[in-house]
C-alpha cells in the first residue's frame, strides 16, 4: 500500500516535472526568439517600406523625366519644322523676291519630309505661292487668305498651330503657320504629316518595354510607337479614357499614377506638356517592369528575414537548451543524491552560475556522504559500546574517544563450566536456548554497569570497565558487576540443573594498565584492551570454579575495604614466572 502510493507520487512528480521542463524550454525559446526575431522583422519591414517609398519616388521622377524629355524631343521636332519654315518668310514680297521665295519653299520641302505642302501668303494675306508634294503647285493665285485662321493666327502670335486633322479618318495632319518679323515678309502656312513623329516617338523607350505617346488637346492620339493605334483613329471610348487619364494625373498634381491603359495593361504613367502645340506627352511603363526593382528588393528583404528568423530560431533553441540543459542535470543530480548516490557528481562546465551551483551541489553531496559514513560508523560502534558510551561517541561527533591509549582498566572475563560437555550432548535448540538466556541476563547487567563488552565467543565474554569512558572507582564497579553476573547466572543455573544440564559459571577479574583502542579493518571494527591485565583476568576466569569470582591482588587492594574477600593463596598461571596471589569475592 505504501509502496503503491510512493510509486504514484513518483509518477505524479515525474509528470509535473516533465511539464515544467517543457514549458521552461518553451518560455526561454519564445523569449529569445522574440528578442532576436522581432527587431529583425521590424527592421526588415521598415526597410521594405522605405525602399518601396524610395522606389516609388524614383519611379515618379524617372517617368516625369522621361515624359519631359519626350516632350522636349517632340517639341524640337515641331520647332525644327517651324525654324525651317521661317526661312520662307525672310524677305518681303516683291517681283525680284518671287523666285527666292519659291526656292526657299522648295528647300523646305526637300529638307523636311513631314511637310506636305507650303502656302506663302504676302503681307496682305494674298496667296502668292503654293507648293506641294502631291497636288499641283500654284503661283500667284491671288486668293485672299487673310481670313484663314492660320493666317490671322500667325499674324497675331507669330506662330500658329492648327488642330490635328485626320486625313480620311486615319492619318494625322496639322497646319503650322509662321509669320516673318515684318508684315511685308508675309506668312508661311505648312501642312504637316504628323505620322513622321513616329520616328521620334518610337525611338523613345521608357525602361525596357515602356513607351511614350502624344495626345492633342481634345485627347486624340497623335503619336504612338504602335502607329496602327494612331491610324485607327480615336473612338469615343478611347477619347474618354484618355481624358480621364489626363484628369487623374492633373488630380495627382502631376505625379506619376498607376492606371490600366487602352490595352488593358496596368501601367505607371507620367505626363508632360509640349509647349506651343498644346499637346501632352505621356510616358508609360508596365507596372510589372516599373516595380521590378521594388519586387526584387522585397524578395531580398523576405529572404533575409527568413534567414534571420531561422538564425533567431536556431540561436533561441541553442540558448534555451543551454539554459534548461544544466537545470535538468541539476535536477537529475538532486534526485540521485536524494536517492543516496552520494558519489554522484554533476558535471557542468558552462563557466557561469550553473557551474557554481553544480560545484556547490557536488560539495554538498560529498559532505552528505561523509556525514552518512560517520553515522554508519557510530551505529556500528554502538554494538560493542555501552549505550552511554555510544551516546558519548555520538555526542563527540567522532571516534577520538576510541583512539588507542594507555588506561587503567578492570578486565572482566566469564564463561560457563561444563558447557563444552553440555553442547556435545545437547541439540542445537537447547544450546541456543541456553546461550540466549545467558547473554540476555549478562547483557542487562553489563548495560546497567555501563561497562564495555569488547568481545564474546561461545560461552565466554570479555568486559572492560573504565575504558573508553572513565568512571569513578572502576575496581569496585567491576567487582560489583561480577557479583551481579554471578547472581543472575546462578538463577539460570538453577533452572538448567533442574533440566539436567551440568553447567556452572565462573568469573575472573584483574585490574591494571592496558592499551585500549579500536582494532579491525573496514567494516569489522572492535574495541579491545591489550595487556597483562587482560591475560591475567582470562587466567583467573579459567581457574575459577562455579559460583567463584576470582580477582588479582591489584583489584583486591582496590576493593578490600568495601567487600569481603577470601585470600586463596598463590597460584601459578601459564605464561607467568611467579606465583600470584588470588582472592575470591564472597557473594550470596
Amino acid at each position, binding site marked *: 500500500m505504501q509502496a503503491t502510493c510512493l510509486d504514484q507520487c513518483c509518477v505524479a512528480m515525474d509528470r509535473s516535472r516533465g511539464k515544467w521542463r517543457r514549458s521552461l524550454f518553451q518560455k526561454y525559446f519564445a523569449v529569445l526568439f522574440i528578442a532576436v526575431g522581432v527587431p529583425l522583422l521590424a527592421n526588415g519591414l521598415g526597410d521594405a517600406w522605405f525602399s518601396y517609398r524610395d522606389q516609388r519616388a524614383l519611379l515618379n521622377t524617372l517617368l516625369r523625366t522621361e515624359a519631359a524629355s519626350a516632350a522636349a524631343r517632340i517639341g524640337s521636332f515641331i520647332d525644327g519644322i517651324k525654324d525651317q519654315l521661317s526661312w520662307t518668310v525672310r524677305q518681303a514680297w516683291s517681283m525680284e523676291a518671287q523666285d527666292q521665295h519659291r526656292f526657299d519653299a522648295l528647300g523646305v520641302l526637300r529638307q523636311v519630309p513631314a511637310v506636305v505642302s507650303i502656302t506663302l501668303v504676302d503681307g496682305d494675306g494674298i496667296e502668292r505661292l503654293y507648293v506641294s*508634294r502631291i*497636288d*499641283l503647285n500654284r503661283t500667284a493665285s491671288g486668293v485672299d487668305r487673310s481670313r484663314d485662321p492660320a493666317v490671322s493666327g500667325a499674324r497675331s502670335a507669330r506662330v500658329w498651330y492648327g488642330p490635328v486633322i485626320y486625313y480620311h479618318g*486615319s492619318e494625322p495632319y496639322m497646319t503650322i503657320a509662321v509669320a516673318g518679323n515684318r508684315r511685308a515678309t508675309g506668312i508661311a502656312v505648312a501642312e504637316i504629316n504628323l505620322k513622321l513623329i513616329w520616328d521620334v516617338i518610337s525611338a523613345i523607350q521608357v525602361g525596357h518595354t515602356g513607351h511614350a505617346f502624344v495626345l492633342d488637346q481634345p485627347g486624340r492620339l497623335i503619336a504612338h510607337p504602335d502607329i496602327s493605334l494612331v491610324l485607327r483613329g480615336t473612338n469615343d471610348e478611347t477619347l474618354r479614357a484618355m481624358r480621364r487619364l489626363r484628369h487623374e494625373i492633373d488630380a495627382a498634381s502631376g505625379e506619376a499614377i498607376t492606371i490600366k491603359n487602352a490595352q488593358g495593361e496596368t501601367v505607371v504613367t507620367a505626363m508632360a506638356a509640349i509647349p506651343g502645340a498644346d499637346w501632352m506627352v505621356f510616358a508609360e511603363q508596365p507596372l510589372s517592369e516599373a516595380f521590378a526593382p521594388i519586387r526584387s528588393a522585397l524578395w531580398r528583404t523576405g529572404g533575409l528575414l527568413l534567414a534571420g528568423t531561422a538564425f533567431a530560431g536556431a540561436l533561441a533553441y541553442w540558448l534555451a537548451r543551454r539554459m534548461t540543459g544544466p537545470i535538468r542535470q541539476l535536477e537529475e543530480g538532486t534526485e540521485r543524491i536524494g536517492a543516496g548516490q552520494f558519489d554522484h557528481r554533476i558535471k557542468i562546465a558552462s563557466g557561469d552560475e550553473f557551474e557554481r551551483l553544480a560545484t556547490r551541489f557536488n560539495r554538498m553531496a560529498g559532505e552528505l556522504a561523509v556525514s552518512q559514513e560517520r553515522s554508519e560508523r557510530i551505529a556500528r560502534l554502538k554494538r560493542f559500546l555501552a549505550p552511554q558510551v555510544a551516546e558519548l561517541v555520538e555526542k563527540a561527533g567522532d571516534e577520538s574517544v576510541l583512539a588507542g591509549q594507555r588506561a587503567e582498566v578492570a578486565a572482566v572475563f566469564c564463561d560457563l563450566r561444563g558447557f563444552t560437555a553440555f553442547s556435545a550432548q545437547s541439540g542445537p535448540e537447547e544450546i541456543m536456548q541456553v546461550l540466549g538466556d545467558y547473554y540476555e541476563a549478562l547483557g542487562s547487567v553489563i548495560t546497567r554497569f555501563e561497562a564495555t563488552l569488547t568481545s564474546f565467543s561461545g560461552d565466554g565474554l570479555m568486559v572492560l570497565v573504565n575504558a573508553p569512558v572513565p568512571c569513578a572507582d572502576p575496581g569496585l564497579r567491576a567487582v560489583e558487576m561480577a557479583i551481579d553476573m554471578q547472581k543472575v547466572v546462578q538463577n539460570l543455573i538453577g533452572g538448567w540443573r533442574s533440566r539436567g544440564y551440568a553447567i556452572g559459571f565462573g568469573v575472573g577479574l584483574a585490574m591494571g594498565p592496558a592499551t585500549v583502542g579500536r582494532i579491525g579493518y573496514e567494516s569489522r571494527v572492535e574495541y579491545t584492551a591489550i595487556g597483562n591485565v587482560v591475560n591475567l583476568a582470562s587466567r583467573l576466569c579459567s581457574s575459577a570454579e562455579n559460583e567463584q569470582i576470582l580477582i588479582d591482588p591489584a583489584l583486591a587492594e582496590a576493593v578490600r575495604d568495601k567487600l569481603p574477600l577470601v585470600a586463596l593463596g598463590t597460584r601459578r598461571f601459564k605464561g607467568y614466572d611467579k606465583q600470584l596471589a588470588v582472592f575470591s569475592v564472597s557473594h550470596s
Partner: protein
Amino acid sequence: MICRLAAILRNHRPDRPNGSQVAGRRRDSMRSIRQRCLYLACTLVVTLPGVAAGQSTSTSMPRIGVLAWAPCEEAWLADISSPFMRGLGELGYKPGETVTIECRSAGRRYEGLATAAADLVRLPLDVVVGDSEPVAHAAREATATIPIVTIISGDPVGGGLAHSLAKPGGNLTGVTYYATELTAKRLELLKELLPEVTTVGVLANPNASYMPFEEDTKRAAGRLGITVRVHQVSEPADLKGAFSQMKAEGAQAVFVLPDLMFASEASRIADLALEHRLPTMAWGSWFAELGCLMAYSSDYGAMSHRLAFYVDRILKGAKPGDLPIEQPTTFRLSINLKTAEALGVDVPQSLLLLADEVIE
C-alpha cells in the same frame, strides 16, 4: 551562288523594285540561251531556299506566299536583299530557317495573275504578299480568308479593297500610295523641266485601264496647257511602234503611266526614248536609274520595307482588317542628268533642288 551574287552586284540595288531586275535581265538579252538556263538553275537553287525547304519543314514555321509579276527567281519581293526581306530580317525572320517563302509568278502577264494567285492560295499560307494594285486584286479574288499584305496603287476604299483606311475590315491591308493623285504632279514636273512643252505622248496599258490614270492625265494636261495623245500598249513588242508613232505625231516628251508591264520594260522604254530623243517622265525611281529622264513617286523601297511590319503583325496574330492601311510619307524625285545631257535638256535649278536622286 557565285553566279547569283554576280547578278545581284551587277543589277540590283536594294530599293529597286522588280522592274529594275527585269530590265537588267533584258539589257543582257544578248546572252546565249545556255548561259541563261545556267543562270536560272542557279537562282532557283539559291534565291528561294524557302521554296525548296517549304516541302520539308514543319508546318509550325510561318509561311509567306509571294505573288509576283516577274518570274519568282527574279521577283523583287522574294529577293533576299529586297527591302521587304531586309525588313523581315530586321524583325527577326530568316527565310528558310524561321519562315518559309512560297512564290508564284504571273509570268509577266496580266492573264497569269489569276492563275498564279489561285495556285498560291492553295498552299497552307499564313499571309500573301504583293507589290502592286493588280496583284492585290488577283490575290483578293483568289482568297477572302488568307491575309493579304500589299502595296496598293490607288484608292483602296474606292477600289473596293477596304472599307476604310483606318479599319480595312477584310483580309487585305498594306501601304497605299498616291498613284493617281501624283499623275498630275508628274505632268507638272515634266512641264517644269520642259516649260515649252505642248504635246506629250502618253504610254498607257489597256490592262490597267480600270485605274483613272488616263482621265487624271487628261485633266491635268488641260490645266497645264498641254495636249496629250494616249498610246495603248499591252505587249512589250508594241513599245517600239508606239515610240515611232509618238515621234511622228510631234510629241515633245513621253509620259509613262503606272503599269506592271511598263515597270518591267523600263530599260527598253529608256532606250527607245533616247533613240527617239524624247524626254521621258515615269514614276518609279528605277526608270531614271535605267535611263529615263525623270521619275517621281512614293518611295517604293520604303513601302515594301513597310510590308514586313504588316507581315510580322499578322504572323503574330493581328487581323489584317484591324491594321490600318498606311499612306506613304516619303516621295522620290529622280533625275538622270546623263540622259538630260544626251537630249540637250537643261534641268532647272528648282528641280535639282527638289530631286532626291540625281544620276550623273
